[in-house]
């Protein structure tokens, strides 16, 4: 199911751990969905001097975190903000379609840690590179019910986690195909 590179990172993950006096911390995911990642960074002269992570999740989630930490180490903040989910997945030799959402989480967690550092520095907010590629939410509830990815108006499949989607005719919220009632308004789904 996984490439050799994914298995190698899963078995021997780089940079596992926490940084007690971290300059920035970023947490994404939710144990309910199966994946949760926390990234810790140390910044010196505008570069990521140290990157550590902890991950609760499947083999892909652990491998992705390990690779992201490796890619980010030594990079400038700007460079690290440009690490995309696509790059991570490619670097790992690909991920099964239903595991693609894991690659998004890794880059998101790193970007969140950098954001957290920048906020601490100046109070200024910086949009992560990965996020800016997503369409803007037109309505508050146009998110994937599984991975929270922002979805366009007429999505049938989440581009991130590949979950099949169905829209509630009543409130317009996205639900997973096969659900009986809308998670948002409780109306029956056809």
């Amino acid at each position, binding site marked *: 199911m*996984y490439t050799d590179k994914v298995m190698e990172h899963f*078995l021997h993950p780089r940079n596992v751990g926490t940084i007690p006096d971290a300059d920035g911390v970023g947490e994404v995911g939710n144990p309910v*969905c*199966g*994946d949760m990642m926390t990234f810790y960074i140390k910044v010196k002269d505008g570069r990521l001097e140290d990157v550590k992570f*902890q991950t609760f*999740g*499947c083999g892909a989630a*652990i491998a992705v975190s390990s690779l992201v930490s490796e890619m980010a180490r030594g990079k400038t903040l700007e460079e690290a903000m440009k690490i995309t989910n696509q790059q991570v997945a490619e670097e790992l030799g690909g991920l099964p379609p*239903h595991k693609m959402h894991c690659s998004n989480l890794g880059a998101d967690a790193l970007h969140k840690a950098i954001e957290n550092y920048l906020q601490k520095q100046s109070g200024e907010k910086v949009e992560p590179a990965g996020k800016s590629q997503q369409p803007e939410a037109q309505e508050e509830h146009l998110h994937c019910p599984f991975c929270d990815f922002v979805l366009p108006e007429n999505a049938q499949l989440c581009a991130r986690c590949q979950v099949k989607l169905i829209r509630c005719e009543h409130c317009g919220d996205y639900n997973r195909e096969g659900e009986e009632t809308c998670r948002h308004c409780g109306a029956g789904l056809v």
Partner: protein
Amino acid sequence: MNGFYADKQAGAPVRPEVLEAMLPYFSENFGNPQSLHSVGQKAARALKTAREQVARLINCQQEEIIFVSSGSEANNLAIKGLALANQARGQQIIVSAIEHPSVLKAAKFLEKLGFRTVQIPVDHQGLVDPGKVAEAISPETVLVSVMMANSEVGTIEPVAEIASLCRSKGVLFHTDAVAAVGNIPVDVRAMGLDALSLAADQFGGPKGAAALYLRKGTKLTPLMDGGVQENNRRAGTENVPALVGLGKAAELALLEMGDKVRRLTALRNRLIEGVLNSLDEVILTGHPQKRLPHQASFCVKFVEGEAMLLSLDLEGIQVASGSACTSRSLRISHVLAAMGLDPSVAQGSLVLTLLDGTGDREIDYFLEKFPPVVRRLREMSPLYTKYLQEKRNVH
């Protein structure tokens, strides 16, 4: 290299005696049981023997056995076939919340035809309360289906009790006994069952061979139309070699039942105690006593099932998990959800089903390899770090 295959429910080797019995029916005894000539009649006799062997295992008459291709087919035939043939009684079907998808989705299909389904919840050990079934039965109820045992959490359901209350109300009762037959004693007469599904691959037989027991005189609408096979209830040329294998496996299972149950129960208990003693924050899922002899299942907090499964596989240990990440649907198992397990805890699901040949050596090996796997994954888990911090703060 040491190894321990503990995923019997997903796939198991065909027993050598069974394979030997099957082999001639691929080549020299190739006849079609429906042919009247001697070559066909040889196959027909083999099929009759297999039917008798299966009937003996569950204590029914051989005419009450309908051969099919899988446990899923047996369940579909039971749910759809019984509901459609008997809908004059009513259009309500009652199932438990932890049924196999082949039962739940067959019921869902019937809803499109106007049937209504009631799902009976289970308690935190996965038990169905017969009282709740009794409450749900209405004059509209045509069929109740509750599984005999759940392979994911091991719990054995009180089907005899449910069957008897269904009987008293004139409602048909089916049980999906795919995980149970061949692994625990099953007697359809003593239990008072109308219909039961079983599958050969769960007790040393081949894949592709299964059966539906149907009490004599029960009306059934066939799902497969065509020839007269299986007394007009399931058309299609019989898979003779596989069914010969099912028969042989049934014969052996009946012969060895008592010893096997005792031996595997002792091993399973040692496995469960070993795991619970060597690791903290691990939950046994399912009922501690009322469970399949060859089944042990856990939820390991702060780690995810697929990560454990992959790590164990590299040590030569094969297990299953009901976590969201191991399923292609990215959802935790409906069984764990129905038992009210916290979804984040259910992510740490691990399911072991032991082959007949499992011995102390395999259990020792697992108990040696498993705790380090969990410790390694916990060391990289942010949830475990948080748990330790909270624990420290309390003290």
